[in-house]
């Protein structure tokens, strides 16, 4: 049967056979991660390009347009062209920039989110490394994005960039709190931080967490949207106020890296949302006889969540910055704390006796 796990086993078996043939079995511990990194980079690059294309198509169709359709079938190669063009575009380095930070900011922006991909379980067993502290790891590592954005805003020597960067940082840290808190009920129920473990729990429990935790799901999606600086929370790069926000002064390939980082952040947070609330790779109830591989389910759910985030972007107006902060602190955080307490109380009522 075709499952993600089988494929991975097959590939790793082949690889190790190849190592043995080449006599480099002792280096497997080094080559394996490199191969997985390359594969993941390839996947993420293709997937992000697809997403950018999808966003342009989705927005176009929402606006009764067609969107890119002249480059490749259905315009699928549009983002490839964009990527190449951005790469071979001249790289403007503004005067008075803070040279080293200006250079490393896009790197950090990309790497921080890219490292988050390590723990995303695409299928049972199809995960680069299923870390014990999976969720916490993702949250911690994406925290680097704040630094990248601050650095970019700081080093560009531009008012819009500076203001945009700091606003962005303030926004991200505010929404990180509610993001973190909204996950807690899930951890309470499952008792693990590992993403695969959470999916396994949902499998055993027979329901997805979106049912009991719809509130947490909404909070999570909202905070994730805000964390990725996407509309309606795109204050830091609110075009109508601050030109491009922190990447106003970035051009060419460096700008592309911010772009890439933003989309990977969307992918990572949507993937976490899928894993936590939508049962990860689990098939839809009553549809498991179809034997569709788990990673297909996972990607389908992922695209659904991403579509949702895109629909937000193209439908809603933008909040003002103070309202945005108010919303984060005065609505999302209280509700998520209430949600935690409510979950605990409900759990005690339902299972309290059995547990003790």
């Amino acid at each position, binding site marked *: 049967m075709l499952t993600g796990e089988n494929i991975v086993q097959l590939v790793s078996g082949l690889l190790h056979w190849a190592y043995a043939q080449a006599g480099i079995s002792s280096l497997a511990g080094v080559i394996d991660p490199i191969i997985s990194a390359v594969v993941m980079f390839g996947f993420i690059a293709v997937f992000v390009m697809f997403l950018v294309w999808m966003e342009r198509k989705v927005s176009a*169709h*929402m606006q*009764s*347009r067609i969107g890119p359709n002249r480059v490749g079938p259905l315009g699928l190669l549009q983002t490839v062209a964009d990527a190449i063009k951005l790469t071979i575009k001249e790289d403007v380095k503004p005067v008075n920039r803070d040279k080293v930070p200006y250079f490393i900011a896009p790197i950090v922006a990309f790497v921080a989110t890219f490292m988050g991909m390590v723990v995303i379980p695409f299928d049972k067993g199809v995960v680069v490394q299923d870390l014990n502290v999976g969720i916490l790891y993702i949250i911690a590592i994406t925290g680097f994005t704040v630094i990248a954005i601050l650095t970019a805003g700081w080093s560009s020597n531009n008012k819009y960039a500076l203001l945009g960067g700091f606003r962005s940082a303030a926004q991200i840290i505010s929404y990180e709190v509610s993001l973190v808190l909204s996950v807690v009920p899930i951890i309470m129920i499952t008792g693990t931080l590992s993403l695969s473990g959470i999916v396994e729990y949902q499998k055993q429990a027979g329901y997805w967490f979106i049912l009991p935790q719809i509130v947490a799901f909404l909070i999570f999606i909202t905070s994730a949207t805000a964390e990725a600086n996407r509309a309606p929370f795109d204050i830091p790069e609110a075009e109508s106020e601050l030109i491009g926000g922190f990447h106003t002064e970035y051009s060419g390939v460096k700008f592309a890296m911010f772009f890439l980082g933003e989309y990977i952040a969307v992918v990572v947070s949507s993937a976490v949302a899928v894993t936590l609330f939508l049962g990860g790779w689990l098939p839809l109830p009553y549809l498991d006889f179809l034997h569709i591989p788990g990673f297909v389910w996972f990607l389908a759910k992922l695209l659904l969540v991403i579509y949702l985030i895109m*629909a*937000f972007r193209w*439908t*809603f107006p933008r909040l003002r910055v103070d309202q945005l902060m108010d919303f984060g602190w005065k609505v999302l955080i209280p509700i998520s704390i209430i949600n935690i307490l409510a979950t605990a109380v409900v759990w005690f009522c339902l299972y309290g006796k059995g547990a003790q």
Partner: protein
Amino acid sequence: MGIVRYFRNILAGLWNLLVGLSVTTKYFFKGTTTQQYPEERLPLPVRSRSMIKLIYDDEKDQFNCVACLMCMKACPNSCIKLEGVRQADGKRRMTTFKLDFSTCIFCGYCVEACGFDALTFVSEEYENSVYKRGSLLQDEQAMKWVRPHSPAAEAAPIENTAPATAGAQS
């Protein structure tokens, strides 16, 4: 009280957000309105003012223009330069006609002013981007246009005295 209102506001807000989402989602699944320009072309109304042409009468093998200078006087922007000579038969004929499309604003006064059916707007010729600014100064050869002999084209030029037949049809 405050708490109830707090949550009611949130719920009402969520509902209205959903209303908005439903609109965009509806259009997401609806067809598009796009006219894919280079392949598909919008049928332009005959009155469209896309390009000014000098009508050339291929039967008489000459331009209709008699160099009466009315168009030049009517032009608000002085972009028509033309010269004419009096021919042997006593009629005036245009010799050179220059229209500077880099300043023409397609107002239509010249066409309206011309009483000799010598100037016309052509709807479909809107693909007129050029690489050199100089190519926008067109002379009579560049503007030469022979009226196709089809009934549809007869109604083409803008006439100020079109019969008032329309209206009151409801």
